[in-house]
């Protein structure tokens, strides 16, 4: 009888010693290709779509200005670095302060990225542009998403 006793089978355990290494690799990949988000957008902005877009190159030389409506609000606000701007002088001061904190090389090619909601009235946008001209920030970029050329 005992001759037919089944040989007990065991599934060999999976060796997971290399799993941490794999995950660390993925982690380092993400650490390199991403950058930390400095500001949390408080205003809702759906940027328009365009075909003639250029990529902004150096992250350290970009100043972001968000324009849009806060959630559940009807008034359009301008957001600078986790707070709202009350008037255009504040925008000017902010851009000037950002520029003075940059390195000399970044200052040369400082770009102001305007992340503006589609439905913003042009009055606010041109006021901001006027403020930027006053402080000498001439290089701007209207943030947008890519659209296929033939869909125009």
């Amino acid at each position, binding site marked *: 009888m005992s001759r037919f006793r089944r040989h007990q089978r065991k599934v060999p355990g999976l060796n*997971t*010693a290399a*799993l*941490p290494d794999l*995950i*660390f690799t*993925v*982690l380092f990949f*993400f*650490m390199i*290709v*991403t*950058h*930390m*988000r400095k500001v949390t957008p408080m205003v809702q902005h759906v940027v*328009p779509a*365009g*075909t*003639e*877009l*250029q*990529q*902004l*190159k150096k*992250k350290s030389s*970009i100043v972001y200005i968000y324009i849009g409506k806060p959630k559940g609000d009807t008034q359009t606000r301008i957001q600078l670095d986790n707070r709202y701007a009350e008037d255009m002088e504040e925008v000017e001061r902010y851009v000037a302060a950002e520029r003075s904190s940059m390195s000399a090389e970044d200052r040369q*090619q400082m*770009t102001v*990225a*305007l992340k*503006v*909601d*589609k*439905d*913003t*009235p*042009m*009055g606010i*946008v*041109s*006021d901001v*542009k*006027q403020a*930027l*001209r*006053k402080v*000498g*920030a*001439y*290089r*701007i*970029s*209207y*943030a*947008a*998403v*890519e659209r296929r050329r033939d869909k*125009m």
Partner: protein
Amino acid sequence: MFKRKKRQVPSLNTTSTADISFMLLILFLVTSSMDVDKGLSRQLPPITPEEQREELTDVEERNVLQLHIMGDGTLMCNQTPLPLRQLQQRVVTFVGSEAERPKHVIQLEADRDASYEVYFEVQDAIVAAYHQLRDQQARRQYGKRLQHCSPEQQQALRDYYPQRIAEVNNSTMATARQSSAASSEKGGRP
């Protein structure tokens, strides 16, 4: 008899290292953003009002293409309504047929209550029109597409078709020489 007992260093239990690194990975995934910033690059004109008013008086009426974005979102081109999708072609014919190319001016005016989306699309169409013209010229002159030209050739093409866009801003007029959208950050100033 006195055989030493073989000692073994107990191995470290590393089962949870994977969990720890997963936590780190998820932290980085949440806090960082991978989106590349894209946008329509423009060069604003410096503020010197007197000088620019003079500059504009030199421009003859026939060299000006007037674009006006009304509050309700319609686009007026030389006082007549123009659908947005025809704007690019309109600008191409205007700039392309101009006998004195370096003298043309596109005057862009937006009402204060016009929507930003229309304004952006107008800007995009104008840049696309310039891009189309430069591309045509590149094929004619160098026999290749614009993006395959050398930086010097691209600069020459930018000089050939300079972007001359004047924006009317709060009743002050300023000639904006816009930076080129055709290539890198070297401004396409005429």
